[in-house]
């Protein structure tokens, strides 16, 4: 069969011609505002700027960041903004924000147990509060409140300890009674006959969610405006090291010289670091998630239930956003898989019986980098000029602004930022783990 060559392309051209200003090369970014929106509506949206340039690599940069996820882009932004470095590139093998930042369940909280973690995640959370304004991009931070359900006596003790640990760091986390929980989430199963009767919840009122894609886009746009080259479709294929020091990298778009290289490649960190001969305490595995069809508001907060491995929130569009467990075995497949999701769904239907009649719309996986103690790794490596920021595993979205901030500071000043210091890669050999998995040690 041959294709009739008719009007096809011409027709679309007619349509395209309507937009006179195609792809302007912008000098200064126009701020987004209601006024802009109205103005642009009047001009039929012909004059919106590009959010970012389609940058191509230069020969050399002061800092090349590998990975245009939230962490990489935030690092670039703060390097430019706070440390006035302008000769920076972020190289991305696919499309910016296409890694875990673009596929996570967007939970933001800082109610951790260990003081090192609290400092890091609370810095990030507090930066999220003003991030839309900072970036001039609505990232829809929604501090709608977050509940960690308490379903066992063991959790009760752990959560009390967390409440106290948080209070000691000045965080607002509270322990709620089952009645208070019911009031916040009326559809919760609070029957005393439930398999795990509800004993209360740890509540962080300023925990919540943000729009995942917008975080990546907002940082990309803001970084681009400060002169950062965000180079997409540019996979790093090699890292050049001379006499223990980085000199540049090989990419799909050719070699690039670099004084410093910061690898922020999440699930692919082991692969990229291997190019510099650095072996990592990481395992990559697909973490599973799903969304339901959108429905009218039914859950107004984020709910996590560690004892039964389920967490859930409802997006502004109305889907229930549900996180599952990880696959059993290492992989880089990003595929959806079943066992983890079935487990999660049984837990959530048990906790929220009315969701039984809703429907799953889509499921997916993201390759997360699980570090040996499940806490992130931030800092310089044994190779001079080679920095790494990884190991965020299942929970790094919430950390993006904080992580970018302290990582940029560490790179710019050639010494770890105080909040980053405990997260150095050397902690493993030293036995100085930062372990948040207390709830895993359930026993009597």
């Amino acid at each position, binding site marked *: 069969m041959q294709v009739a060559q008719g009007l096809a392309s011409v027709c679309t051209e007619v349509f395209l011609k309507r937009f006179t200003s195609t792809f302007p090369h912008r000098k200064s970014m126009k701020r987004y505002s209601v006024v802009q929106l109205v103005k642009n509506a009047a001009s039929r949206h012909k004059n919106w700027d590009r959010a970012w340039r389609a940058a191509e690599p230069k020969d050399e940069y002061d800092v090349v960041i590998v990975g245009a996820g939230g962490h990489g882009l935030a690092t670039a932004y703060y390097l430019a903004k706070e440390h006035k470095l302008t000769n920076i590139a972020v190289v991305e093998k696919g499309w910016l924000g296409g890694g875990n930042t673009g596929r996570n369940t967007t939970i933001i909280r800082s109610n951790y147990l260990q003081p090192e973690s609290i400092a890091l995640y609370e810095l990030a959370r507090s930066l999220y509060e003003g991030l839309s304004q900072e970036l001039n991009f609505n990232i829809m931070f929604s501090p709608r409140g977050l509940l960690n359900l308490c379903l066992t006596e063991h959790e009760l003790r752990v959560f009390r300890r967390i409440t106290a640990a948080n209070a000691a760091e000045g965080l607002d986390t509270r322990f709620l009674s089952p009645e208070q929980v019911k009031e916040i989430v009326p559809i919760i199963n609070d029957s005393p006959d439930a398999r795990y009767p509800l004993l209360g919840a740890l509540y962080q009122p300023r925990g919540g969610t943000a729009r995942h894609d917008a975080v990546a886009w907002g940082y990309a746009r803001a970084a681009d405006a400060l002169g950062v080259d965000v180079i997409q479709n540019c996979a790093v294929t090699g890292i050049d090291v001379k006499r223990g020091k980085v000199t540049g990298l090989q990419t799909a778009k050719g070699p690039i010289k670099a004084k410093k290289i910061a690898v922020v490649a999440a699930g692919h960190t082991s692969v990229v670091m291997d190019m510099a001969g650095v072996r990592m305490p990481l395992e990559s595995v697909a973490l599973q998630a799903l969304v339901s069809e959108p429905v009218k508001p039914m859950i107004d907060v984020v709910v996590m239930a560690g004892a039964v491995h389920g967490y859930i929130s409802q997006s502004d569009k109305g889907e229930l956003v549900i996180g599952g467990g990880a696959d059993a075995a290492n992989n880089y497949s990003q595929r959806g898989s079943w066992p983890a999701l*079935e487990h999660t769904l049984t837990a959530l239907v048990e906790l929220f019986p009315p969701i039984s009649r809703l429907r799953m719309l889509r499921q997916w996986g993201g390759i997360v980098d699980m570090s040996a103690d499940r806490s992130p790794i931030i800092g310089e490596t044994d190779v001079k000029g080679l920095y790494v920021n990884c190991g965020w595993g299942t929970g790094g979205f919430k950390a993006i602004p904080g992580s970018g901030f302290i990582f940029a500071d560490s790179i710019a000043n050639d010494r770890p930022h105080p909040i980053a210091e405990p997260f150095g890669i050397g902690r493993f050999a030293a036995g100085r783990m930062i372990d948040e*998995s207390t709830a895993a040690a359930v026993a009597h």
Partner: protein
Amino acid sequence: MSGNPHRLSADWTGRLVDRSRKISFTFDDKRFTAHPGDTLASALLANGVRLVGRSFKYHRPRGLVGIGSDEPNALVTIGVGDKLEPNLRATQVEVYDGLVASSQNRWPSLETDVGAMNSALSRFFPAGFYYKTFMWPQAFWKHVYEPVIRKAAGLGPATTQADPDRYEHAHIHCDVLVVGGGVAGLAAAKAASETGARVILAEETHRLGGSCDIGGGKIVDDAPLEWARSVADDLLASDRVTVMPRTTVISHFDHNYVLMAERVADHNPGLIAAGHPRQRLWKVRANEIIVAAGALERPLTFSDNDRPGIMLASAARGYAKRFGVSPGERVAVFTNNDDAYRTAIQLFEAGVNVPRIVDTRPGPDSSLIDQAKAVGLRMSFGSGIVGVKTVEGGKHIDGIKVAPVRTSGRLGEPEFIPCDAVAMSGGYNPAVHLFCHVGGELVFDDALQSFRPGSTTERLRVVGAANGIFNVQSILEDGFQGGEHAARASLKKRPAKAKLKAPKATQSTEGPLEPIWFVPALGAKNEGNKHFLDFQNDVTAADVELAAREGYRSVEHVKRYTTLGMATDQGKTSNINALGILSDVLDTPIPNVGTTRFRPPYTPTTLGALVGPIRGKLFQPVRRTPIQAWHEVNHAHFEPVGQWRRPYCYLRDGETIKDAVSREVLAVRNSVGLLDASTLGKIEVSGPDAAKFLDRMYTNMMSTLKPGRCRYGLMCSDQGFLMDDGVVVRLSEDRFLCHTTSGNADHIASVFEFWHQTEWPNWKVIITPVTEQWAQIAVAGPNARELLQSLDSDLDLTSDAFRFMDFKSGTLAGMPVRIFRISFSGELSYEIAVPAGYGMGLWDALLTAGERHGVDTYGTEALHVLRAEKGFIMIGDETDGTVTPLDLGLSWAVSKKKADFVGKRALELPEFHRPDRRHFVGLSTHDGNTVLPDGAQAIQINAERTSSPPLGYVSSTYFSPTLNRSIALGMISGGRDRLGQTVHFQAGERMIAAEIVDPVFYDKDGEKQNV
């Protein structure tokens, strides 16, 4: 018009409906009549209801677009109360008598929807508008904008009640799973079963035949449907084949694991009453899979193409043929391909007025076009619909404006053609979804202007229209060949030359289609913001263009920025059209633009079905000890411990939990108490190398333990952190019994196996978990010995004969027992193990014998208090994965003599010997009536509250009934060197002062347990 204004005349009764019978249903509280066999879509159409829903963003009035599961618009809510179910596609809902349906996403009503204002304002809501605004002032997002947006979004409502229906899971294996019961699927199933394979044929709808009833042509000498009927009969009669109607293959996972959702009773609630589940999830493992899922028709992108009355051409003729319903009285056809001519001809034959066939192709030529000409249909070639005239605020169309589209892209003189419906066709997309779930690679087919399957690592093949083959003869051949090959592969037969022959078929040949992604419109309408791509999410051509222009150039960016393809239909009909536009915008061919990722499930699937029976009392098993029933009868207040449910305490009349716990503690301290310790993990380790092996597993030396003796042991991970503890008993020279904590029983057994098999496979060790073989009862308290002595026994229980940490076996009260004289309470205490079947008997015997001592039973909380009084650690309270035995002051249990044990090397790290590590200590509040809160953080004496990390925390805290004061245990930095110092704890607004003391609060010299 009365009754069913759009039912066709008697010759066109609709082959699926029974016009002789009537049933009734309601839509938005209005009662309507339908016939058995109708879908809600066909019944609404028959009743002249065009407006069935409102779109997501602009609340535009919407009607039916399709006829199957690809329907983007006609979403309805079915049922009420606890059976309420939102977002169902009217095209899939089979009407039964009494069905209650409602429209969604409108307020106050479908006809007058306030949200429709959004449509008028649509210019202010281009793609991604919310990223650009709603930012000021900062607090407004949470308090003002977001609540409004949330309320407005979200399609249908959810029920707030628990789901009353039952759901099932079932597992099934087969040689060949065939997805789809159209001609291709039937052919494949027939060929596979005739080759000897065990075959499952799953079909999403309630009937077989797929679209062959509207595809035209002949198989052998009959209508394709007749062939389908006879093949179906063969398949149904075969015991090698299972045909599953109303079963959607939703997901394909690694290694041909497939989920299928069967809608067992949705079409007939009577089945639920009769004992059937509402839906069933099938978990299939198929050696080979054949996807014969057909192809999905795509709309054309013209201005106002979303108006009610504009539907897909195949749907239009489907409604006529299957349900005897016409989409309208005057139905214009708009196409870029020949297949839509079948719609024109069939509608014409059904007596519907077809005023015009508008064909974008300048001079198409084929037998179908000739047929259309022959029956007198009029055509406008090289033309497009350049405007749609609507009435009643866009709820109905009144006619179309048709104009020649010149090669310059300019429009010729428009002609107005009155009509109340349009059947459109932009070509077909093979249904490649399932092929893609497990990494199948697509190729772009220029002739189809669509993607079709390329290569895959799975044992899966695609046939028929899903494979991009649309001609019946070729489909049959493809199906037969696929079926035979798959069967041979599964049965491991040699792939000989195919033996089975497909029957002969004929079908009118079709000319080529013309790719056209954007039909120009008159005047201002050309902005593209009424050229809808994704109907449900209101994504237009202009949105796609804007996204690309703003830099969102990856197809995945376009999807996310515009929400294209993210609605409940996942862009089944619209995605390729959008790719076409994007391709033109970026000036990049479609294959380079690529497509967004296909993900499971194929259609949205009820969470209830996914969860199946695993809910309520079948949600996570509760393990029961042999004494569980007694606990229940005797008012135990339970707590979950692992999968067990252990008595926390036993409540007597009028008692609070606190009262009960203190009574139980005092009973043990003052007389004697019984604890059901059956849940403790028990592992027998035997063999010549058992002692050597346990020396590795435990930090202590176990090889020096004498037969008949017990030793408290610690187990670390190789990282050096304390993992578990328990008493090890040497039953005989080469046989040990290891006790573990309840929650860790299975874990430790597998840890043992792991070390044995992977690190020391040649050691002669046999590991036998025996937790469930034994019921175990702790008898603790000063009167414990007397109690036991009052029972018949062949054992000498006197203190010299049966010392602390001794083990003996014998009989007690006529039961075979193992008795361990160990104590977790600090009292004289025996733990007695009996084969589980005797558990209740022993419990009874002990209770009876203990009556004169006022024996009491105690639960886990009393156990905790008792051990805390003694300063014993509890795994999970004092440990959290970061604590070593050294931190806990248990270095006496960490052998210095052994060359190696699990955790030894790590424990030598300087980090674990830092003087400021947190040590396990007692905490004695200055005020004995004040109980420290759980987990309270210790703050340096005299220091201002700073953000510097606290000194440590409270790990266990109780009011001790024994000592009549509060006691607490905690982990304090350098604690062992701070004994006697005071630390402070924040408790709400209050500061509590406590002294750091030795963790043993009660009977420091251990006299009680040694009596």
